[in-house]
């Protein structure tokens, strides 16, 4: 596929020293923590944004914070770029390496360090998966709220990097609202701690800055997160509609009425069919659009909230309403939704977009998205966090066909511009990465970006951490 987004030119001085660097890293780390063989490096050349690929110089898989610090200290001394990597599930290419970079993978740092039910916190190493945290405390009646669909695999470090969200963030907020503290290694190997078990630390709220910093401010090695007590009960309900527009305006009205369910997820017909084929969740197949609305609380609370929602849905001509009858059924409903992107692979390659729009614009943007993609002669499936207005059009295409691939990318750019024009923004939760880097100028003024880059430079004056991402290559401060 023809690449339209460039990476930084590799530093020749680093490439020339490859053998020495590899030998030095080998000395600095225990056995089994360094990958330098060309064959072994290949699988690290991309993440879940597979349209782009770059081989790294080497991959290290440290086992301790100290080892991360040693590697970063070494790299800063020799001016070697670093790309942090969690599970490599980024959809914006956040974890894609570059030829002169060392990938620092956190996958061996996957231990849960402390669970403090009294203070409702968990402290974990950065490579622990999102779901592992909830699994560890589930028997005690707790969970970790932000639930990206990729929660089975993605790591807490990656979640912090992207400030990830998920279906249940409508009620509980995204990563930044649930993160209490981090241990982090700075570019030169200095280890700092931010926040802690307390809800509000004194001084600047640097944690807020770290969330969503896409691995550019440091490498998180430990995180302390908030645990939430599970509600008495939870019930996902399926609402089927004859058009995407009516489903979209129903969402706007539910939120507008002041009701905040735990989750409102949207799927259009192509998405319903894809997910049903994988999960057999019992989604209605005779509707054009489906909302999964989850309510929680006591039976009475759920009933009363549902009554309100059903009333609104009726006004928007809802065709079918189906409440899940058992825990198993509820689990299947979520399994289908959370597998949506992966399951799309059954029928086509896809680029997953991630724009956010005001709810009042949802119907309009959905319709325009369909038109834009059709205009490029392609198909689209929509499955997203509707309550937050966080849209994920999946543009379906054939990655082996360069022409289709180019059209898919252009359609994607048009859709993101549409989101910005509709008063929304380029990214909801997947981050800027490499994918949306060059569109940043469409959303931000030069002064906005300069200020952000200033903050970045305060943490990483040499621009060594994940340098090809987030900020357009032009307009950066001279190195």
């Amino acid at each position, binding site marked *: 596929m023809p690449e339209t987004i460039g990476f930084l030119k590799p530093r020749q001085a680093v490439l020339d020293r490859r053998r020495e660097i590899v030998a030095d890293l080998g000395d600095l780390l225990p056995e089994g923590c360094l990958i330098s063989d060309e*064959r072994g490096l290949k699988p690290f050349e991309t993440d*879940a944004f597979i349209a782009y690929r770059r081989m790294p110089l080497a991959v290290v898989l440290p086992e301790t914070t100290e080892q991360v610090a040693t590697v970063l200290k070494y790299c800063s001394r020799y001016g070697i770029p670093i790309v942090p990597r969690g599970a*490599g599930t980024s959809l914006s290419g956040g974890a894609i390496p570059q030829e002169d970079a060392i990938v620092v993978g956190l996958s061996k740092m996957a231990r849960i360090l402390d669970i403090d039910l009294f203070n409702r916190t968990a402290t974990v190493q950065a490579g622990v998966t999102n779901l592992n945290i909830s699994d560890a405390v589930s028997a005690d009646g707790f969970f970790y709220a932000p639930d990206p669909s990729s929660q089975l695999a993605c790591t807490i470090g990656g979640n912090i990097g992207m400030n990830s969200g998920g279906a249940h963030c409508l009620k509980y907020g995204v990563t930044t609202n649930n993160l209490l503290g981090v241990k982090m290694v700075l570019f030169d190997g200095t280890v700092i701690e931010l926040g802690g078990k307390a809800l509000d630390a004194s001084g600047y709220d640097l944690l807020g800055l770290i969330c969503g910093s896409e691995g550019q401010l440091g490498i998180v090695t430990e995180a302390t997160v908030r645990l939430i007590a599970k509600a008495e009960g939870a019930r996902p309900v399926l609402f089927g509609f004859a058009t995407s527009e009516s489903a979209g305006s129903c969402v706007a009205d539910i939120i507008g009425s002041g009701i905040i369910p735990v989750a409102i997820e949207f799927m259009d017909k192509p998405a319903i069919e894809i997910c049903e084929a994988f999960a057999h969740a019992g989604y209605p197949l005779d509707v054009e659009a489906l909302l999964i609305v989850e309510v929680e609380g006591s039976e009475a609370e759920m009933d009363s909230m549902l009554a309100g929602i059903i009333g609104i849905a009726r006004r928007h001509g809802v065709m079918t309403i189906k409440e899940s009858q058992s825990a198993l059924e509820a689990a299947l409903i979520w399994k289908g939704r959370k597998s949506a992107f992966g399951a799309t*692979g059954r029928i086509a390659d*896809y680029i997953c977009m991630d724009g956010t729009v005001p709810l009042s614009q949802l119907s309009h943007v959905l319709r325009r998205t369909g038109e834009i993609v059709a205009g490029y002669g392609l198909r689209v499936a929509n499955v997203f966090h509707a309550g937050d207005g966080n849209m994920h059009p999946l543009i379906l295409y054939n990655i*082996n066909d360069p022409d289709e691939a180019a059209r898919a990318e252009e359609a994607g750019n048009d859709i993101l511009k549409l989101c910005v024009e509709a008063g929304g923004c380029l990214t909801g939760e997947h981050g800027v990465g490499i994918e949306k880097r060059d569109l940043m100028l469409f959303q931000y003024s030069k002064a906005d970006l300069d200020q952000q880059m200033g903050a970045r430079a305060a943490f990483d004056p040499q621009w060594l951490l994940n340098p090809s991402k987030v900020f357009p290559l032009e307009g950066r401060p001279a190195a």
Partner: protein
Amino acid sequence: MQTNFSPEQLADPHVAESETILRKCVHCGFCTATCPTYVVLGDELDSPRGRIYLIKDMLENGRAADTETVTHIDRCLSCLSCMTTCPSGVDYMHLVDHARVHIEKTYKRPFKDRLARSVIAATLPYPSRFRLALGAAGLARPLAGLLKRVPFLRTFGIMLDLAPAALPVSRAARPAVYAAKGTPRARVALLTGCAQPVLRPEINDATIRLLTGQGVEVVVSAGEGCCGALVHHMGREEQALQAARHNVDVWLKVAEEDGLDAIIVTASGCGTTIKDYGHMLRLDPTYAEKAARVSALAKDVTEYLATLDLPEREPRGLTVAYHSACSMQHGQRIAAAPKQLLKRAGFSVREPAEGHLCCGSAGTYNILQPEISAKLKARKVRNIEATRADVIATGNIGCITQIASGTEIPILHTVELLDWAYGGSKPVGL
């Protein structure tokens, strides 16, 4: 994922199949999380997504296998947990099968590995040789420690360690027709297996007693051989296909004689392979259709029992930790049936945490990859013991030997407990 094969490469049906499989993978990474080797090693190269990428690169470039790729493919347990997880339906099983054949053809292993693999391929699939080898192992056991210290002979030391101290008296089910009690309602063939009748003849005895008791006629056919799984997983394609053709002939002969409703398999590892005969022999014009028929007839014993509607039994006050073998839950996707059967038979069933993770037995894996295998065994035993069950039940002989070597809790095949509940004698070891 994008693939890069030339039309000439795609003319090879094996490459064409792998290409189709690779195209489905969207590189989402979900499968890494449930892969036992990734969970214990934390290296993407030891995850499904990493292995898929390694295989893709090797095949696209038409390259001979290299040490790095072989190392990580060898560490794959073939547990197929990744296939249960993959939302996109990536057929990892057939991709890794192809990779293993490619490795076997293009890669020269160090001499000691070749020797160990040849010994395994020449003994395990043959009950008489296996029995002989185990007898010899009994005599040689004192040497195990010594052998393990010599790198060259390490694998043999490990094999000696794994050999049971005493073998049960052989009363393996002989080729015969075991008549149904009462009015016959079905006729099935039973695969008695190769390692299983040597290590635990009770399993086949219990199966025959249970099935005949339910009005099912059971045929143990003369000449039936190893299903071929062991050599198949080592990439020894011809030897595996030979085994498959042989068994297809044997069972279809039984079917022609007097009809056949099912081929019952009591080791889920074998079941996964027999259900794949149709695919394995798809390119063989004389066998493709016959093999597909055999695959369709193959049923795990619990899968079959679930269709018989066994009566409900009074609770026995015995708690059973059910360990679902990978070949059962991932390979054959049989998850609920064994547990439901046990519950109906009056046992209270507990499910250990991390049930999707392999116990590390995985055919010959515990011999060829002892370190990873030991880690997985310890983890499995910890999870099982946490259930505080009285007994462990599972449907695969490999898991039985593996788990038994790590815990004091007795472990039985699910049919042994079922047979007991439906009139058989109390299982040995309980």
